[in-house]
């Protein structure tokens, strides 16, 4: 288990401002989502989730077919499809197009994929200027930080943080007022939009039968990115495909609601290539870059393929009690929250951060809100198994495995189990008067560091059961029932006096 992962968790939990910020923001998302998927508002919400799950399943189970359909449709309309096996080949492709066309400035719409492959770094290394245009991403670019949340990248930044940042990096007069800061960002970015030769976007959905990409937003930067520059490159993971435009009637009803509690975001763009004869504005050239980067490996796994259904709404993060306490930067890899916890080990290997699949109480809140019904807790359990196999030779795993082998042996031998019970009564401290144990040694100190631990009962259930049988059914029943029924308040506490006296 990585010390730094545990350390990061500890740091996050100790940062009270951060705690308040994430808690408040995610609470807003939770309530807004709840309002718009309520049965009175969207009566067919559960049905839509099932349809979305089935559409994703069908598409991914036949992905080669749909990718080829997509390619032919894009090419039909004069666009080009670039297939990229990994991040490096993707960044190389983008850089080469920019160089070929003599492009210096590339405006970018928010794209988790571009984070994943380190596109900005690659562009900068090659003398190009990538400009993030989503306000949250723009802030992060100025600050040199990674996104904090799939949908709200600058969730962790206060208005004071942003005010300070803009004053320093943009040379503007210090203000902490969001509308003023936003107006400055608009001014600065509008100039970039008008200068840029290339617009790079991601894609929320890629429609195979239309050869089109679909993008949702509230700000308008995606529309500008994909309308003003003469070259538009859309980068998308191969898993983003859906079969038909008509399937958007299902997916668009789920995405906005799950992400930000909006039936539709302010803008939804359905882009099918470069501008056509007759149309005035729009890109002259359209490229669709399809990225593998480990997705085909996940695709091949029957059980974990569903990880690829994700439409990046962020709803899982918003409800996750762990995410809501540690925030996005604690997670290794580009993706955070519950989806990050199952995606990152599959991209980077179970040994990459072995503790990650265990940093969950398996409460299932994520699965409950996932619009495409990914069974995240199940995926976590499978990844836990894989992690133990991958780390089998490491000492901590070997010790733990030995512990469970002993446990298993005990649990298959009821008499041994009972003996162990007697032993624990002898060994563990037995506080008087129904108190619980305040302190335990070794790994169990992690428990008693935060709460009391129950001492073993004076008589186990099986002892009580045997006693009642020995005493004969009638009189023992009365005795046992009497214990419970006498209404003595002390009797009713879990682990009360009569358990331990």
């Amino acid at each position: 288990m990585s010390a730094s992962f545990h350390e990061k968790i500890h740091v996050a939990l100790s940062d009270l401002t951060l705690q308040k910020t994430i808690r408040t923001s995610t609470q807003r998302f939770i309530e807004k989502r709840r309002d718009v998927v309520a049965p009175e508002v969207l009566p067919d919400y559960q049905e839509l989730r099932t349809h979305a799950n089935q559409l994703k399943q069908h598409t991914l189970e036949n992905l080669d077919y749909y990718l080829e359909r997509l390619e032919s449709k894009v090419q039909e309309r004069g666009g080009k499809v670039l297939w990229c096996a990994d991040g490096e080949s993707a960044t190389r492709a983008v850089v080469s197009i920019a160089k070929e066309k003599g492009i210096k400035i590339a405006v970018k719409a928010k794209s988790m994929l571009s984070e994943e492959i380190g596109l900005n770094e690659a562009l900068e290394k090659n003398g190009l200027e990538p400009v993030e245009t989503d306000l949250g991403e723009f802030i992060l670019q100025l600050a040199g930080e990674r996104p904090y949340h799939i949908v709200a990248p600058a969730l962790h930044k206060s208005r004071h943080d942003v005010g300070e940042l803009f004053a320093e990096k943009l040379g503007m007069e210090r203000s902490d007022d969001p509308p003023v800061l936003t107006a400055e960002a608009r001014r600065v970015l509008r100039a970039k939009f008008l200068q840029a030769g290339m617009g790079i976007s991601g894609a929320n959905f890629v429609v195979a039968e239309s050869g089109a990409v679909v993008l949702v937003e509230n700000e308008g930067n995606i529309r500008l990115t994909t309308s003003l520059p003469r070259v538009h490159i859309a980068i998308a993971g191969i898993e983003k495909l859906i079969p038909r435009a008509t399937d958007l009637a299902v997916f668009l009803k789920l995405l906005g609601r799950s992400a930000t509690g909006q039936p539709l975001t302010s803008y939804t763009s359905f882009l099918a290539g470069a501008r056509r004869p007759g149309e005035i504005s729009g890109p002259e050239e359209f490229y669709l870059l399809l990225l593998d980067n480990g997705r085909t490996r996940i695709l091949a796994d029957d059980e974990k393929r569903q990880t690829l259904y994700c439409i990046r709404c962020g709803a899982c993060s918003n409800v996750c009690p762990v995410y809501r306490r540690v925030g996005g930067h604690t997670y290794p890899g580009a993706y955070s929250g519950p989806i990050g916890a199952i995606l990152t080990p599959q991209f980077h290997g179970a040994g990459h951060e072995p503790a990650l699949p265990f940093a969950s109480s398996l409460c299932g809140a994520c699965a409950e809100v996932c619009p495409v019904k990914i069974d995240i807790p199940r995926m976590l359990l499978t990844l836990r198994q894989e992690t133990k196999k991958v780390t089998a030779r490491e000492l901590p795993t070997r010790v733990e495995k030995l512990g469970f082998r002993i446990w298993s042996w005990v649990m298959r031998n009821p008499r041994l189990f009972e003996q162990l019970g007697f032993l624990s009564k002898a060994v563990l401290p037995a506080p008087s008067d129904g108190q619980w144990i305040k302190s335990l040694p070794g790994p169990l100190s992690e428990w008693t560091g935060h709460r009391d631990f129950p001492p073993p009962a004076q008589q186990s259930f099986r002892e009580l059961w045997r006693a009642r049988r020995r005493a004969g059914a009638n009189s023992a029943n009365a005795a046992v029932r009497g214990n419970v029924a006498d209404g003595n308040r002390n009797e009713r506490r879990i682990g009360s006096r009569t358990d331990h006296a």
Partner: protein
Amino acid sequence: MGLSVSLFVTCLVDQLFPKVGVAMAGVLERLGYRIDFREAQTCCGQPAFNSGFTSEARDVALHFLKVFEDAEYVVVPSGSCATMIRHHFADLFRKDPGAEAASRALAPRVFEFSEFLVEVAKQEDVGARFDGAVTYHDSCHALRELKIKDQPRRLLGHVRGLELREMQPVEECCGFGGTFSVKFGELSGDMLDGKIEAIRGTGAGTVVSIDPSCLMQISGGLRRRGLPIETMHLAEVLAAR
């Protein structure tokens, strides 16, 4: 009724909270069920399964199957154990068709306690009396895997003298999560803080749950803070008179 019910009390109840088992047995007997306690029982295997050690979990699950294979009904005072048996045994036995068949055959006969009362015994009023304000904690496995939300509330609704208050937020994890509570103690403790805040917000004197693991976590936290709020299993409330 003459129907027979096998108790699977769970390892936690057997060793730490036997009164829960006693209470559950009492309620069922009062309803006319013949109950048996198969002494060979130990554990459902969940701790190993959740920790990623499937072969160790499998061995224990096989033992469970042997003990309960021919039971008419198995009633469990734990949502997480019932989930393990009904939803995850089949995963463990994918390479063992005999055991897989046995676990699939057993699953429909395994019930969490409140489920059993409401759906099988069809008794929502078990004649209990408990004076005071009570808040109910939804255990995650029971809630989300077994869809147990109404049943305990309906049962509590019929308890004379009991005032049920809902906590806000409701349905949030108490932070137990099995070995999570020890591997990520600080995080687990922080989640527990949130749960205790919600409980205190109701002003109730008692918090009730259907899962001994949640009760262990919550009670541990309440006691550490010296708070005078009682923790009870649903069975204990229903057995009160």
